[in-house]
C-alpha cells in the first residue's frame, strides 16, 4: 500500500565554503603573479636612482599603496552618494562603502609607515610637516572616524545613512584640509628638506616597475573589496536572523506564559 508521505525536507545543499568565486580566484592568481613581477622588478631588475640610490625601490610599493587608498576613498564616497540619493536604498552600496573605507584605512596606515622609512633614507628624517604628509595623516584619522561611526548601535539602515553622510562630509573635509595645509606650508619653505612632489627623473625600467606595482595593487584592491563586501553581506544576514530568532524566542516565551496562565485558571474557564 502506498502511503502518502509528507514532502521530505528539502535537503539543504552543503553551503559553499566562502566568499570566493571563479572570478575572484582568477583575480587572486593575477594579483599574486603581478606581485611576483613587482618584487622581481622592484628589488631586482630596475636600477638605482641617481639621487635616491636604492631607496627609490621603496617607492614601487609606497606609491601603489597610497594609490589604492585614494581609489578606496573615492569608491566609498561614490557608494555613499549612491546609497543616500537613490530611491531604492540598497544596502549593498553601504557595504561596499564600508568595505572600501576599511581597506583604504589600512593602506593609508601602511603608506604612512613605509613613507616614513623612505623619508628616513632620503630626507634623513622619519617625518616632516609638509603639505602632503600632514594631509595624509589627517586623511587617516578622518577615516578612522568614519569606521567608528559605522560601529555605532542601530539598524543596518541607520548605519548606512549615518556612514553615507559622514563619508560625503569627508569629501568636503579633505580638500579643505589639503588647501589649508598647502597654504600653511607654502609659508615655511625652509622646512621642506626635499621636494616631496617626488619629481624623480625616472627612466623607463623604473617607470615600468611603478606601473607593475600600481596594476598589482589595483588587482589586490578589487580582490579585497569583493571578499569584504560579501562577508559584510553575510554578517548583516546573520545579524538579522539573530534578531528574528530573538524576537521569535520572546514571542514563544510569552505564548507559553499565556498558555500556562490560561491552564491554571482553566478550570473555571
Amino acid at each position, binding site marked *: 500500500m502506498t502511503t502518502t508521505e509528507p514532502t521530505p525536507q528539502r535537503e539543504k545543499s552543503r553551503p559553499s565554503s566562502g566568499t570566493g568565486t571563479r572570478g575572484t580566484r582568477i583575480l587572486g592568481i593575477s594579483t599574486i603573479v603581478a606581485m611576483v613581477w613587482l618584487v622581481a622588478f622592484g628589488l631586482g631588475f630596475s636600477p638605482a636612482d641617481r639621487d635616491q640610490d636604492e631607496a627609490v625601490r621603496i617607492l614601487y610599493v609606497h606609491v601603489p599603496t597610497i594609490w589604492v587608498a585614494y581609489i578606496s576613498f573615492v569608491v566609498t564616497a561614490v557608494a555613499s552618494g549612491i546609497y543616500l540619493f537613490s530611491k531604492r536604498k540598497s544596502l549593498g552600496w553601504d557595504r561596499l562603502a564600508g568595505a572600501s573605507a576599511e581597506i583604504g584605512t589600512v593602506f593609508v596606515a601602511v603608506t604612512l609607515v613605509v613613507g616614513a622609512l623612505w623619508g628616513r633614507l632620503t630626507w634623513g628624517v622619519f617625518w616632516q610637516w609638509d603639505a602632503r604628509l600632514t594631509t595624509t595623516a589627517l586623511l587617516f584619522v578622518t577615516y578612522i572616524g568614519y569606521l567608528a561611526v559605522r560601529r555605532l548601535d542601530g539598524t543596518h539602515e541607520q548605519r548606512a545613512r549615518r556612514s553615507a553622510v559622514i563619508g560625503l562630509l569627508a569629501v*568636503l573635509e579633505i580638500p579643505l*584640509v589639503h*588647501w589649508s595645509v598647502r597654504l600653511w606650508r607654502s609659508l615655511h619653505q625652509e622646512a621642506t628638506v626635499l621636494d616631496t612632489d617626488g619629481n624623480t627623473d625616472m627612466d623607463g625600467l623604473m617607470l615600468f616597475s611603478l606601473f607593475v606595482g600600481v596594476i598589482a595593487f589595483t588587482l589586490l584592491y578589487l580582490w579585497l573589496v569583493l571578499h569584504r563586501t560579501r562577508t559584510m553581506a553575510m554578517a548583516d544576514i546573520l545579524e538579522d536572523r539573530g534578531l528574528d530568532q530573538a524576537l521569535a524566542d520572546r514571542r514563544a516565551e510569552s505564548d507559553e506564559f499565556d498558555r500556562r496562565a490560561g491552564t491554571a485558571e482553566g478550570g473555571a474557564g
Partner: protein
Amino acid sequence: MNVWRLARLVARKDLQIEWNSRVLLNQVLPFAGVTMVIFAFALDSDAVLERVAPGLVWLATMFSMLVLVQRTFAVETDDGALDALRVAGTDARAIFLGKAMSLGAQLLVLEAVLLLAAVVLYRQTVPVGGAVLLVTTSISATCGLAAVGTLYGGLAAGFRGRETLLPLLTLPAVAPVLIGATRAVEAALGTAGAVVSDGWPWVGLLVVFAVAFGVGGSLAFGPLIDE
C-alpha cells in the same frame, strides 16, 4: 514658519538653558583657564609662550569646545528633547542653525576670556591696527567651529562612546580652522614679525570653511540625527 525664525527660537531656547544651567560659566571656562595655566607648566619658557600664545588660545578653545558640546547635547539627550523636536516635524536645518548660533555665541564668550588670559599669562598685547583682524578672525572661525561642533555633537550625543567619538570626528575636521585662525591671530598680534595684512587670506579660508560647513551641516544634520 521660516527657517531662520525657527532657528532663532531654537537658539534662544538653548541660550536660556545655558543661562539656567551655567555649564559654560561653571564648567567650561574653568576648564579653559586651567588649560591655559598648565600649558605654561609644560612649556616652561616665557619666550616660547609668547611666541606660541595664539596657537595655545585656539588649542584651549578647541578642547573646551569639546567639553561644551558634550555637556550641551547631554542636556538634550537626557530628556529626549532633540527627538521630541524632530518628531514634532521641526525642520532639521532650523534646529541645526539654531543650535549652531547658540554654540557660536558661547564660543565667542569663551574666546574673549581666553584672549584675556593670554594677555595676562602670556604677555600678549593687541595693537590697535590688529583689532579688526582679531575680531573678524574670531567671528569667522567661530562660525566654522560652531557648525562642526553642532553637527558631530548631534551625532555623538545619543551614544555610549560619545566622549571619544566627538573629538575623533571633530578635531580632524577643524584642523583648517586651527591653522587659519592661529596664523590670522599671529598676524593681528604681530607675533614673530607677522603683519596684519598677512592675516586676511587666512580669514578668507575661515569664511570658506564656515560657509562649507554651515551649508553642509544644515543638510547633513537631519539625516545624521534621525532615527
